[in-house]
C-alpha cells in the first residue's frame, strides 16, 4: 500500500464516519456541520486522486454555498440548541433505502469494472477538464444548464406573489 492509498482510506473513513453522524445526530444544526466534514473529506479524496479542480469545485460549491444555504434555511425556521427529541424516524426504512442503494451501486460498480485497472489521467487540471467538457460532453453540459435554468425560473415563479394578490410580501 502506498501513502496515497493510506490517505485515501483515512479520508474515506472520515467521510463515512461524519456521514454516519449526519444521519445519527439529533442536533439539527450539528448534522449540517457534520455534512461539511463529509464533503471536505470527499474533496480531500479527490485531491489525493490528483483531481485538483474537482476537489476545489467541491469546496467552493458544496461547502461554501450548498451547506451554507442549508444551514441558513434551518436557522431561519427552527434551530434549537441541543438535542431535538422529535426527529427520530423508524430506523428500518433508512436502513432499507440506504443499504439497498449502497448495495445496488456497489454491485453495479463491481460488475462493471471487476478488477481491471483503469489508467487515470495524470492530473485533473482545469485545461484537461475544460477540454473534455466542451469537446466530448457539450450536449449533457448544455442540457444540464437548461435544467438549472428551468429550476431558476421555477423558483422565481413560485416566490412571486400572484398578480392582483396583495397578501404577498411587499
Amino acid at each position, binding site marked *: 500500500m502506498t501513502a496515497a492509498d493510506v490517505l485515501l482510506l483515512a479520508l474515506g473513513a472520515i467521510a463515512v464516519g461524519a456521514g454516519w453522524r449526519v444521519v445519527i445526530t439529533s442536533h439539527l444544526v*450539528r448534522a449540517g456541520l457534520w455534512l461539511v466534514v463529509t464533503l471536505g473529506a470527499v474533496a480531500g479524496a479527490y485531491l489525493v486522486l490528483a483531481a485538483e*479542480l474537482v476537489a*476545489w469545485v467541491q*469546496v*467552493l460549491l458544496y461547502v461554501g454555498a450548498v*451547506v451554507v444555504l442549508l*444551514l*441558513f434555511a434551518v436557522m431561519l425556521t427552527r434551530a434549537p440548541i441541543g438535542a431535538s427529541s422529535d426527529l427520530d424516524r423508524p430506523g428500518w426504512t433508512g436502513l432499507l433505502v440506504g443499504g439497498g442503494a449502497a448495495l445496488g451501486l456497489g454491485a453495479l460498480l463491481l460488475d462493471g469494472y471487476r478488477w481491471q485497472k483503469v489508467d487515470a489521467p495524470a*492530473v485533473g487540471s482545469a485545461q484537461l477538464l475544460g477540454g473534455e467538457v466542451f469537446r466530448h460532453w457539450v450536449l449533457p453540459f448544455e442540457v444540464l444548464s437548461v435544467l438549472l435554468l428551468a429550476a431558476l425560473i421555477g423558483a422565481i415563479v413560485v416566490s412571486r406573489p400572484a398578480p392582483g394578490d396583495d397578501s404577498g410580501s411587499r
Partner: protein
Amino acid sequence: MIEVIIRVLGVVVAFLTLPLLVGQAEHKVMAHMQGRLGPMYAGAFHGWAQLIADGVKFVQKEDVTPADADRPVFRIAPVIALVPYLVALLFIPLGPRDWLVGQPIDIGLFVVLAVVGVGVVAVLMAAWSSANKYSLLGGLRAAAQLLGYELPFVLAAASVAMAAGTLSLPGIVAAWRPWWLLWQLPAMLVFFVAGLAEIRRPPFDMPIADSELVFGYMTEYTGLRFAFFLLAEYVGIVVISALTAVLFLGGWKGPLDGQLGWLWTLVKTFAVSFVVIWVRVSYPRLREDQLQRLCWLVLVPVSLGQLVLTAAVRVLA
C-alpha cells in the same frame, strides 16, 4: 521537506505581521481622517506598540463560553474563521519566481476563491452556537450577504482569468498589460466592492452593526477567541487587497521589476488596504435592503457585462 517548512514559515510570518501593519495603519489613518491623533503612548513612538498591547490584553481576558451555548461548536468557530485566510495566503504570489509563492499551483485563483468562501461556515457556527438572538440575526445577515456577494466576486475574477487565459495567479500577472487597467476597470471595481462585502468591512458591516446588534455574531465572544475573529478580519483585508493587486493592478510589474518586483506587490497591496480603510471612514453603513440591491442590481449585471466584453475582445482580438 526543508523547503516546504521554510515556505510555510514564510507564510506564517506574513500572516502574523501584515495584518498587524494594516491594523496599525487603520488606527492612524482613521484618526488623522477624523482630525485626532490615534494611539500615541504605547511603545513611545506614535503608539506603534498599541496592537501588541491589545494582543496582550486579549490573552489576559477570561475566556467565557455562555451556559446555553453549544460548547464544541462555539469554541471551534473562531479557528475555522481564521484558517481559510491562512490557506489563501499560501497561494498568493509576491513575485514571478517560484520561491516568492507559498505554494505554486496551477489553479491558484480558483483555490483562493474556494477557500475564502469557507469562512461563512464559521460565521454561521458562531452565530448559531452563541444562543443569542443578536448573534443569530447577525449570522443570518452575514450568510445572506456572503451568498449574494460571492457571485459578483467570482464573476469579476473569472473575467481576468478569461482575459489572461489561465487560472494561475503568476500566469495572470505575466499576461497583464497596463491597458488592462482600463479594459478590466469594471471588473476591478466589482471585485473590490464584493471583496469588502466578503470580509464584512464597513460599509458592508450589516452583520456586525454595533449600534443595533451589539456585535452581531461576535457578541458572546471574549478574550482570545474574539481576537481570532478580529485577526481574521485583518488577514481578510490583506488577502482581498493582495488579490486585487495581483489580479487587476499587475502585481509585481513596475519600474525595476527585475529586482524589486516583490516590493511592488507589497506596495500595491498596502495601497489597496489604504483604500479599504478610507472607505470605512467615508461611507455610512448600508441598510440590509440597500446592500442586497447593490449586489443583485448593480454588481451582478456589471460583472456579467464585463464577462461579455472580455469574451468578445478575446474572440475578436
